[in-house]
Structure formats: C-alpha cells, structure tokens
C-alpha cells in the first residue's frame, strides 16, 4: 500500500506498478466531518467547560472559580433530579431489559409462527416520534375519564391520578418509556440470541436442562455482552431523559419527574443562567461516565 503521508519518501520498487494517492484525498473524505465536529462539538465542549467556571455579573460573564460547582453540590433540585433519574434507572431499566430478554427468548422459539410479524409489532413503538407518543400517553392517562382509568374502572379499580401525583407520575413515566423502548432492546437481544448456535441449546437440553435452567445457565451467560450493551445504552438514555417527562408532566408534580437534562434546560434556557447550566452539563457528563464505568467493571468481566 502506498501511504499518502510520505509521498516519494521511498521510490517504488522497480518492476512493480504502484499507483499514487493524491496527498489531499483523505482530507476531502474526512475533512467535512472533522470540521463539523470541531466547530459544533469540540469548541462547544471547551466553551461550556470554561463557562462552567464563570458567572454573570452586570451582564458580563466573569471568572468565578468553582462557585457554580459548589452551588451545584448544595442545590436540592440537582439531587432531586438525579434521584428521579436513578429511581427510574433502578426500576425501569431492569424491568425493561428483563421483559425484552423474555420476549427475545420467546420469539427465538423455532415452533412459533409469525415471528417476524411479532418482531415488527414490538419494534414499532421505538420509531414513534417522541413528542407524539408522550402526548398520546398524556391523553390516555388523563385522570378524569382517560382510557386507562376507564379500563381500570371496568375491573373495579378506582381512577388513578396519573400525572398529578408524584409517585404515579413517575410510574406513568416509567410505563411510557418501557412501552417505547422494550421492543428496541428486544430486537438487539434477539439478534444476539440468533448468533448463538442452535446446537448449544440442543446439547444442553439433551443433557437434561429444562427451559428455566437453559435460560439461566446458557442463554444469559452467552448473551452477557449484548445485555451489557443494552444496560449501558439504557442507562445513558435514562440520564439524558428530556422529551418524555417534558411533554408528559413538565417535570412535575413537585419536581417528581424533574430530570438532570430538564433541569439544565430550565436553568439555561428559562433562567438564562449559562454558567450554572454549563456546570450542570458537566455534572451529567461525570455521572454518566461513572455509571457506565461501573457497569463495565461489574458486568463486563469474564466474557
């Protein structure tokens, strides 16, 4: 191979025809992406880091040391929003990944008819426009005479004040997110399952393993990397939650569904406190980094 970076550094060996890549060719291919990343990601990253150490005084951004960060560590709303995100993380992510795993195993059964039909149906929520589905859930979950409460009434359960009660609002949020993302994770897990040779399962069941043992001792260990992928992406997604809770509850009631990104939005773009919003942004970066690292550490071993 001729490399572009050393044009003419060594003469091509005689007797072999060598072509030459124009020196600037790679720049035409990776240049646009590189410039876009530098301008719209690299520079904003640096800028927000700098601004996170600044506060506005008399209309001017002035250096303020770690003032924003010490404010952050004493801000109950930051911890409320992080607590909400962690609550959703602890309840919703295992629920969803578990459900997705069970569905994937069910759809991997050779005897089942219409498997691809089921796959499409379960995946469908994942392509819905975020705002649209949050709106639909808002309407379905309306306290007075919403469809869900009416359905509960049929089986004799009193209406639930879904979006105005702190606990129920969280549950409503969890239900909505689970509805949208379970099929997505299922499709990824199913692809992982299909990568496991069928003989592995057959060998295990000939050895006398029942369905449950098969699941526990064959399926889950072999799927470990894929499950880890789903866990990490779902964790990141949960900590970046904005669309759903913004549309469903605007973060309410009483900040019960306030998430870090929604708080960043309120501080930065409603309160126009850019310095503090930048600090919140870096706080989110740190939290996501730590959680991803922990997951890799504790679940990523022994693959």
């Amino acid at each position: 191979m001729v490399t572009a970076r050393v044009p003419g550094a060594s003469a091509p060996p005689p007797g072999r025809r060598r072509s030459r890549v124009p020196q600037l060719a790679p720049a035409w291919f990776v240049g646009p992406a590189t410039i876009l990343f530098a301008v719209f990601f690299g520079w904003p990253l640096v800028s927000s880091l700098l601004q996170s150490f600044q506060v506005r005084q008399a209309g001017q951004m002035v250096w303020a040391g770690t003032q924003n960060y010490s404010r952050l560590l004493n801000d109950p709303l930051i911890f409320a929003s992080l607590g909400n995100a962690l609550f959703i993380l602890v309840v919703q992510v295992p629920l969803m990944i578990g459900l997705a795993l069970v569905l994937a195993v069910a759809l991997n059964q050779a005897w089942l008819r219409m498997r691809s039909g089921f796959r499409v149906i379960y995946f469908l929520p994942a392509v819905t426009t975020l705002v649209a589905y949050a709106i639909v859930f808002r309407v379905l979950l309306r306290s007075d005479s919403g469809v869900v409460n009416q359905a509960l009434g049929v089986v004799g359960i009193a209406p639930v004040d879904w979006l105005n009660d702190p606990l129920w609002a969280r549950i409503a949020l969890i239900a909505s997110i689970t509805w949208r993302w379970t099929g997505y994770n299922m499709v990824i897990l199913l692809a992982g399952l299909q990568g496991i040779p069928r003989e592995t399962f057959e060998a295990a069941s000939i050895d006398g393993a029942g369905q449950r043992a098969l699941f526990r001792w064959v399926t889950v260990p072999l799927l470990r990397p894929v499950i880890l992928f789903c866990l990490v992406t779902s964790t990141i997604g949960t900590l970046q939650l904005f669309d759903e809770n913004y549309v469903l509850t605007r973060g309410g009631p009483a900040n019960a569904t306030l998430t870090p990104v929604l708080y960043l939005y309120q501080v930065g773009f409603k309160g126009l406190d850019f310095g503090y919003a930048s600090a919140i942004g870096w706080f989110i970066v740190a939290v996501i980094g730590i959680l991803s690292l922990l997951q890799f550490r504790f679940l990523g071993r022994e693959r």
Partner: protein
Amino acid sequence: MGSRVGRGPGTLLSRAIVVGALLVGAVISLFPFYWMAVAATHRTSDLFTSPPPFLPGGQLLDNILALQDEIGFARVALNSVVIAVVYTVLSSLVSTLAGYGFAKHRFRGRNLLFGAILATMFIPYQVTLVPLFQLMSALRWINSYQAVILPFLASAFGIFLMRQGFLSFPDEIIESGRIDGASELRIFYGLVLPAVRPQLAALVIYTFMSQWSAFIWPLLMLNREDAYTLPVALNTLVGQSHVDYAGLMLGSFLATLPVLVVFLLFQRQFISGLLGGAVKG
C-alpha cells in the same frame, strides 16, 4: 411439529401461554397507535365519554381544519419535511465520506481522529447546548432551517456504521481503479459506494427518523409559529389551558405516520443496519 423439542405433557399448555402473552404484548404495543388514529376522527368532547370511542368517527376533516387553524399545520409539516430531508441528505453524505476515508485511506493521525470522533458518542451532547445556543444567537440564525440542521450534521454513529461497511471492501479493487487512472472521487462514487448500499439505506432511514423526531434542539432554536417543526408545534398545543385533544391526537398521528410508513417499508434494512452498530460490528 418438532417432537424433539416438544416433550412433556405441559408443552402444549406452556406454548399456549407463551402465544397468549405475546398476543397481549402485541395489543399493548399497537393500542396507542390505534387509539391515536381513532381519536383523530372524533370531537374532543367525545374522547372522554364513558365508554370512550373505539371506532372511527366522522370528525376527521373538521379536525384537520381546526389543526391548520391552531398551529398552521401545512407550514409546520413543510418545515419538518424540509429540515428532515435536507438534514438526511447532508448528514448521510458527511458520514459516508468520512466512513470511507477512515476505512480506506491512510493518513497521519487517522486512528487518533477516528478515536476522538467515536469518543463523542460517550459524551452527552446536552453539555454542548449552551454554547451552541449562544453561537446560533450570535449568528442570528434563530428560527432558521440551518440552525436546526447544521450543528448535528456530523454523526459519530453514522461514520462508524459506514466505516464498518467499507472495511470489508477489497483494497485490490480500489488499487486497480487507481492504476486505471480513475480519480479518488470516481473510485469512491463508481466502485465502492454501490457495494455499501445496505448500510447506506439503513443510515438514511435512521437519520431521517431521528431528525423527524428531534425535539430539544428545535425547541431551543425555533420560537416563531411559522418556523416550528411538528414536535415543537404539538408541544405548544399541550401547554394551552384549553387543550384540543382531538387535534392533538390528529397532529400526533400525522407526525408519526411518515416514520411509520418508512419503517414498515424498510424495516428489514433498518433493523439490520441498526444492529450493525450494536451487536458485533
């Protein structure tokens, strides 16, 4: 029926339970779509009657007119289409070019640059929102198409996906193209690109759907009614004191319809393309 797998007296029963549970799950998956469509054809006042309507009504046309009146639906839909289409074309182009450059060209700092781009996938983009907002304000681009389109054109996922596609393309063919005197662009366009059509299809579909649904950035960039995209416009309806729920359901249905159609037409390419990035690259 496979007798090897089906043993024991409980098998038939357990299969029936599995199928039953799957059907219930399918109904839960589909019901919100169905109800959205049904609700779009009724009056708001009829949506919360007991029992609620489960069959289409006759209000569709009235609701369309009302929605046009409330959010200027035609204009908003046009904004959404223009932004999503232009974004998809440009972003796919950038990703494809970069993916090819990283897969098949050698240059100083290639691995470092590619690593840096991949690393952006692990940094939540929300941290860049404040400076990006300031940049767009300084450029006086608020309420413009380019403000929504430009900042997120380069996609690490897209570059990664396309690079994976190009990697398996044989170097010898590229080399023979060079020996024949074809320009680098000609080689890319004529020889290599046709080979990655499946990845490109997946990328285009994925890019379109993600921009069509994009919310927080358009919400920050667009504050004039005639500049809104569909999700932003629908969001303003939610905030009103007297909510037109039927209009909201119609708007949500119309906002979902294009992605639904695109997905159902191309679901095979889309799912396999998506998995290209997830399960074993």
